[in-house]
């Protein structure tokens, strides 16, 4: 690809053109440095009441850093914030909250050992006569969650609920109080259809009430639907602020990346064979999955679709020995027993988790050890860890997967979300598996990198591997898969391929009982 500087910014209004008088929040020339590394430099932004302001940029562009600056989690090294013309300085997030700024984090920040209600009201419990009023808090929590369409019980422990539900709890937490500015940092990355729609509706409602909304997303269609203004960041610097509705998705992508983009989905390749590679019979995962059988073929990209809670993650965790479950598994026709992830990896089946922070990477550890953790046995034959080889592999992975980082000595937790995902992909592929199962491959990944990842997946099947993709983005599945299995309430409700592989057909299978019956004809 060429580095093209051909972005016709002149089509758009110059930044700062359309400013009415009273921004509710203003950042002026803010920068953030970590040691010698500059993550954000000289960003100036006005946020008006009743305005939805989207901030977009590639992975690692500095969006989350900027949002954390605005809401008091970190302090700028230069520049200043003001609210309604008054200089403000936040040294702690609760000060920003008191001033009316709430942030929904990109990563989940909840206390897992506590209940949903406890988390919602943490630090601002309601009391009655000196006692915490649990009943009332539970009621309010349940009401707020219902409003967001989240059906998780208010008394559940956060540790027991799914990632998506946790995200909804975070959103509910931010919306519980009346705020003047609400910042959403990739709120929809772990959500699917229903929740996304409801969230967008709620954002419009906030706007109608005169609340300012800052919105970050890699899903440019959402940005397009929502944003009054779009600010683009690239490499920590402002590219500009543009009126939202005039930008097409392609324009946004170009501004973010700074060059022309190829098509999002690659041309489908005819690598699929009829030779089953991984066959699973009668998979059972107590409480989640009943009686699921399927097989993935050599050279095939097999999709797994379904709504949140359909049990896709649990299915594969059960098959791979990561949670209790039973299944008869055959690899290349030979029966194998998998009781742990180790045995799965040794057999050549790799699983890439959807929860990269909790289960994927050691956030406090450097990149090299993270990269080789799954592949210790094959990567370091013998007893000793070979650091030189590891460094080499890291350099290789950084260039192959285009992992953006400021230093090779960084810790995994310092990478931006998207780059963590790429590191995780590199880590799993280092084991050289023949079957690759990727759970939510592009969660939180920017549009350019998505295309890259689709490319990587295609490379895998071209090498004769089988690839299973679990995704909550139906578009993505339709875009890259040869065949898609749809799950609903722990069972397979149907399968689509070729002609029938449309989003509406998948949606039908994923939601409706009748579709299950009707789908016999499709097969």
């Amino acid at each position, binding site marked *: 690809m060429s580095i093209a500087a051909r972005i016709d910014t002149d089509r758009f209004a110059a930044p700062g053109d359309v400013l009415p008088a009273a921004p509710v929040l203003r950042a002026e020339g803010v920068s953030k440095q970590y040691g010698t590394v500059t993550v954000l430099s000289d960003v100036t932004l006005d946020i008006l009441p009743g305005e939805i302001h989207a901030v977009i940029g590639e992975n690692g562009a500095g969006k989350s850093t900027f949002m954390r600056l605005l809401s008091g*989690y970190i302090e700028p090294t230069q520049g200043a914030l003001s609210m309604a013309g008054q200089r403000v300085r936040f040294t*702690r*997030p*609760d000060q920003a*909250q*008191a001033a009316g700024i709430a942030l929904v984090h990109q990563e989940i*920040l*909840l*206390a*897992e*050992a*506590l209940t949903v209600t*406890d*988390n919602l*009201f*943490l*630090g*601002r*419990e309601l*009391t009655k006569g*000196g*006692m*915490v009023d649990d009943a009332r808090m539970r009621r309010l929590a349940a009401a707020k969650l219902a409003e967001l*369409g*989240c*059906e*998780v*019980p208010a*008394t*559940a*422990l956060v540790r*027991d609920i799914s990632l998506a539900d946790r995200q909804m709890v975070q959103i509910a937490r931010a919306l519980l109080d009346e705020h003047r500015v609400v910042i959403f940092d990739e709120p929809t990355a772990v959500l*699917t*259809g*229903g*929740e*996304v*729609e409801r969230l967008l509706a709620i954002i419009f409602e906030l706007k109608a009430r005169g609340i300012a909304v800052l919105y970050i997303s890699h*899903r440019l*269609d*959402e940005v397009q639907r929502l944003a009054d203004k779009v600010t683009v960041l690239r490499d920590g610097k402002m590219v500009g602020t543009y009126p939202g509705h005039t930008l097409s998705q392609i324009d946004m992508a170009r501004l973010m990346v700074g060059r022309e983009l190829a098509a999002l989905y690659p041309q489908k390749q005819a690598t699929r064979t009829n030779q089953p590679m991984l066959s699973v019979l009668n998979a059972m995962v107590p409480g989640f999955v009943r009686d699921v059988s399927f097989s993935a073929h050599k050279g095939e990209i097999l999709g797994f679709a379904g*709504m*949140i*809670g*359909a049990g896709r993650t649990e299915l594969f965790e059960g098959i791979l020995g990561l949670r209790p479950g039973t299944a008869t598994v055959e690899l290349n026709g030979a029966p194998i027993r998998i009781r742990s992830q180790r045995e799965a990896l040794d057999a050549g089946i790799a699983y890439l988790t959807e929860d990269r922070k909790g289960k994927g990477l050691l956030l406090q550890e450097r990149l090299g050890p993270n990269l080789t953790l799954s592949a210790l046995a094959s990567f370091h034959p013998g007893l000793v860890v070979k650091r030189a080889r590891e460094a080499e592999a890291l350099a290789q992975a950084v260039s192959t997967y285009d992992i953006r980082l400021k230093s090779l000595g960084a810790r995994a937790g310092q990478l931006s979300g998207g780059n963590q995902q790429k590191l995780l992909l590199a880590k799993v592929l280092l084991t050289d598996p023949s079957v690759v199962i990727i759970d939510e491959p592009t969660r939180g990944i920017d549009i350019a990198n998505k295309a890259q990842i689709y490319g990587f997946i295609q490379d895998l099947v071209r090498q004769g591997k089988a690839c299973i993709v679990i995704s909550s*983005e*139906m*578009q993505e599945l339709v875009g890259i898969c040869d065949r898609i299995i749809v799950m609903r*309430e722990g069972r397979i409700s149907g399968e689509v391929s070729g002609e029938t592989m449309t*989003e509406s057909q998948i*949606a039908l299978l*994923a*939601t409706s009982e009748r579709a299950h019956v009707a789908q016999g004809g499709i097969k």
Partner: protein
Amino acid sequence: MTALTQSVPARNERRYQFSWADAGPFLALAALLALGFLVNPDFLSATNLSNVITRSAYVAIIAVGATFVISSGGLDLSVGSMVAFIAGITIMFMNMMAPSLGLWAIPAGMAIAVVTGLLCGLANGVIVTVGKIEPFIATLGTMGIFRALITYMTNGGTIPIDRSLREAYRPVYFGTLGGIPIPILISAIVAVLGAFVLYKTKYGRKCAAVGANEDVARYSGISVIKTRTVAYVIQGVCVAVAAICYVPRLGAATPTTGQLWELQVITAVVIGGTALRGGKGRIWGTIAGAVILELIANLMVLSDFVSEYLVAAVQGVIIIIAMLVQRFSK
């Protein structure tokens, strides 16, 4: 963006209602009582049970405080020495005041005990939170300090309570109210108060939050330093209350008073179902844990199976089995 407009029904409601983890310690307690009865029917006699529960009162009272410290993500190894130190200070003060105040020296001494406990707890809390020292090490340090201070105060011997106060003070351990031994009443009051604070007040929530995830707590505007320090102060006050009940029992403080109680206290808390890594504390489980420990020791004496040399081994085995039962009853 594709829209799926329907969300899955919440089918997991029932999971959150009855928890074996909560019931675990009480089941273990019941099992132990049954076992005890089989071994020696006297075990369930009113006198024996009342003795044992009264004895467990100290550890129970201290363990209520420890439940706060542990659920806030801390640990306190100094409680045993702190009992001795506070008992020493209290007795010295009472003895000093007895000539002028007469029996009023007793309540005055109790007040001094509470103040001392509060200050000791504060010291622990500040070293751990402001000094940012691993609680294990910080309180190991203060454990040595308190122990040395009581040794110094007693010249290595005993500080007995003044004879003039002894009889008046005795009922605090040996007395009963409505047939119930006073230490049991006091520990019940401490437990109810503890449960109230931990479960019903804002502070209790903060405590659990700080223990569950410091970052989340900080981001929620909770002062980790303040919350955890207060937990240590509560611990200190509980230790003081235990010391107040303790003094009349033998009427003296010695350098061996309270030795190794810290281990018993922590064991009681953990047997009670509170996780050592912090998060949520279980006051009632803690109380059950304290009684369980004392019952095991009692059972060792009442049964004739075990060589005197092996008592500690059997106790160790029973504790491990109790924990296993609790784990696998889930």
